[in-house]
C-alpha cells in the first residue's frame, strides 16, 4: 500500500537529493500516520509524472473524479472514484487493489501492467513513450490494449474506463494437471 511507503523508500525515490544526517532507522520509528501526508504528496508528484498542477491541488482533486473499474485476478470487479490527475497505479493502491508497483512509477518495471478492456478507451490514451514500450515488451500476458498503470492518468474522457489485471493463475484450476494424479513420496525416506 502506498500509505505504507516508508521514508526509507522516499529517500530511494528522491535519490538525487538525499537528506543528510537522517538516520533511516530512527525515522522509521515514527508512527506510520506521520509519514502518510508526506507520502501522499510525494506519491502524487512522483506517480503522476505526466501531469502537472492538478495533482498538488487537493481542493480541485476532490471536486473532479472519474469512475474506474478494476477487474482483479479472480475476475472480481471493483468500481472506484479516481481524482483527475492521479495515476491508475496510485488509484489501485489507494483502494487496496492488488496491483504491484515494484519501481513505484519510475518506468523500470512492468508490474503495474493493466489491460484496457475497451479499445475505444485505449485509443483515448496518449501513445506510450519508448520507455513504457520497453517495459511492456516484458509484461506478463501482454495484449494489444496493455498499458502500465503508472502511465495512465485519470482525465475526464477516461470516465468509465475498465482495467483488468493480468493473472498467472486465473485459469489455474482448469488448465492445471491435477495433483491427485501423482503418488505422494515420503519426505523422510
Amino acid at each position, binding site marked *: 500500500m502506498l500509505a*505504507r*511507503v*516508508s521514508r*526509507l*523508500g522516499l*529517500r*530511494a*525515490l528522491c*535519490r538525487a537529493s*538525499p537528506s*543528510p*544526517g537522517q*538516520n*533511516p*532507522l*530512527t525515522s*522509521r*520509528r515514527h*508512527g*506510520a500516520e506521520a509519514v502518510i501526508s508526506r507520502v501522499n504528496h510525494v506519491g502524487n508528484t512522483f506517480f503522476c509524472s505526466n501531469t502537472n498542477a492538478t495533482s498538488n491541488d487537493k481542493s480541485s482533486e476532490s471536486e473532479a473524479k472519474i469512475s474506474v473499474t478494476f477487474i482483479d485476478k479472480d475476475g472480481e470487479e471493483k468500481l472506484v472514484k479516481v481524482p483527475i490527475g492521479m495515476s491508475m497505479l496510485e488509484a489501485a493502491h489507494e483502494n487496496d487493489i*492488488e496491483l*504491484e*508497483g*515494484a*519501481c*513505484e512509477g*519510475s*518506468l*523500470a*518495471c*512492468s*508490474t503495474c501492467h493493466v489491460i484496457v478492456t475497451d479499445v475505444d478507451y485505449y485509443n483515448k490514451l496518449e501513445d506510450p513513450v*519508448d*520507455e513504457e*514500450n*520497453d*517495459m511492456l*515488451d*516484458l*509484461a*506478463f500476458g*501482454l495484449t494489444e490494449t496493455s498499458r502500465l498503470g503508472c502511465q495512465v492518468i485519470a482525465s475526464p474522457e477516461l470516465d468509465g474506463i475498465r482495467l483488468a489485471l493480468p*493473472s*498467472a*493463475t486465473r485459469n*489455474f*484450476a482448469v488448465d*492445471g*494437471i491435477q*495433483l491427485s494424479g*501423482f*503418488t*505422494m*513420496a515420503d*519426505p*523422510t525416506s
Partner: protein
Amino acid sequence: MGRARPLHHAARRLLLLPPRLRGFSSSSAAAAASSREPLHVCVVGSGPAGFYTADKMLKGHQGAQVDIIDRLPTPFGLVRSGVAPDHPETKIVVNQFSRVAANDRCSFYGNVTLGMDVSLSELRKTYDIVVLAYGAESDRSLGIPGEDLRGIHSAREFVWWYNGHPDMCNLAPDLQSTDSAVVLGQGNVALDVARILLCCTSELAATDIADYALDALNGSTIRKVYLVGRRGPVQAACTAKELREILGGLKNVRVFINEADLLKSPSDEEEIRNSRIQRRVYELLSKAAIAHKGNNNNDQKELHFVFFRRPTRFLPSEDGSTVGAVQLEKTCLKDDGVAGKQVAVGTGEFEDLKCGLVLKSVGYKSLPVEGLPFDKYRGVVPNLKGRVLSSESENATVEPGLYVVGWLKRGPTGIVATNLHCAEETVASILEDEKKGLFMGPSDSKKEGRRGLLEILEQKNIRFVPFDGWEKIDCKEKIAGELKNKPREKITSWNELLMAAN
C-alpha cells in the same frame, strides 16, 4: 532483536521480553489470530523470487508464518548483487520487500546456508512447507580450450565484484594491461558489464558501486569492448531498455555494427513478426548502425557488436601468463526444425580477436543441494507449477511440502517482475495443496517451524543475522555513502558485514 518499525500493540508489548521468548510468543499470537496452528513456511533465498513468494504466502494464508533464510547476511539477492549500480530505479523494489519483512508473521535469518548450516531434510522435518528460491549461483561453462587462462572471468563474477558481493570482493580483475575486452554473450548481463567497462566513472561515482571497483575502473585502460553473439541482431537476447541505454546513453563511445549483419533472412522476418521484443531490439540496432556511421573521433571509446561468431578457444598472450585472444568461428543460422528456432552452426572459418580481458556472459547455472531432485541437463529442479517432482521422468512423484520458485524453477532468465508471476504460480500450488489438507499430518508429528529452526541454529552455534541486523548494515552503508554523495557505500567483506549487523 528490537525491530525498528511500527508494530501492532500486541507485538510492541513483546519488545520487553527476551528475544527467544518473543519470537515464540508472537508466533502463538499469529496462531491464535487464525484460531489454529500456524502454517510453518520456510523460504530459502531472499531475492525477488523468495520475497515475492513470502508476500503472496502471507497474503494468501492468514495462518502462514514465513521464515526466510539466506546464506548472506544481507537480503534481496540479485537486487543487491546483480542489478547494475547505475540502475537505482530497478532497486526500488526493496521498499516493497522490506515491508514484507516487516510483517509480524515474517522473519529473516541471514548468514544461514542451506546444505551447510541446515540440511534440506532438517528443514523439511521442521516446516510444513519449504520453498526453494536460492537461484543460480554458478555459471555455465563454454567447455573450450584455454578457459582457465588468467583474465577470463564469468560475467557473474565481474558483476558480483563491482556490486560488492562478499564472495567476489577479492576478484581484482586486471583492467590495466590491455585496451580490449571481449564479452561473450549479448544478453542484458553482457550489456551491463560492457556498459560498466565503458561508461564514464564520474557517473558511476554517484552510484552504490563498490569503492574498490570504482578505483579499478578509474585506472582502467580498456577502450574497446566487443560484444560477441553466436547469432544475429534478430536473435540478440537483450531487452530494448538496456540496448537503448548502451546505444545512446554512453558519453564518448562509438558503436560499431556491421551493416551486412543486419540483412534479414525469411526466417528472421518470421521471428520478428512473432516477437514484439525481437522486433524492437532489431530496430534499435538498425538505427544505431546508421546513426554511428561516419562519426569519427579518435578519442572515442569503441563498442563493437560482433554477430554470427562463436568462441572456439582462448589463446594465451605472448608471455603465456594471461589470455591474449579469443578464437572465433563464423556461424550461420539453421532452422532447428523442432521449436521453429534458428540455431548457430559453425562454418569452419576462423578468426582471432585480440584482447586482455574476457567476460563470459553465457548464462548462470543453479546448483543442487543434497536430497534435492535436480535436472542436470536443464539446470533446474523438476517441478509441476512449483511442486518439486522426484525426477524429470514421466512417472515422477510429488515431493510433499517441497516447492521451488524463481531461477531454480524455470532457469536463469527473466527480469525481477518475472518472479512475481512465478511466485504467484508456486503459491497457488501451495494453497491448493493446503486446501486439500496435504499439510495436516497426524497430531503427534506437528512441525515446529521457527522454534525448530532456532534450535537447530543454536545447536550448531550459527550466528544468524535477523532483519534488524540487516537494517544496521543498511544504515551504516547509507551513512558512509552520504559522505561520498553515493546512495550507499556497500560493506563488502564477510567479517565487516557480520560486525556491522551486531
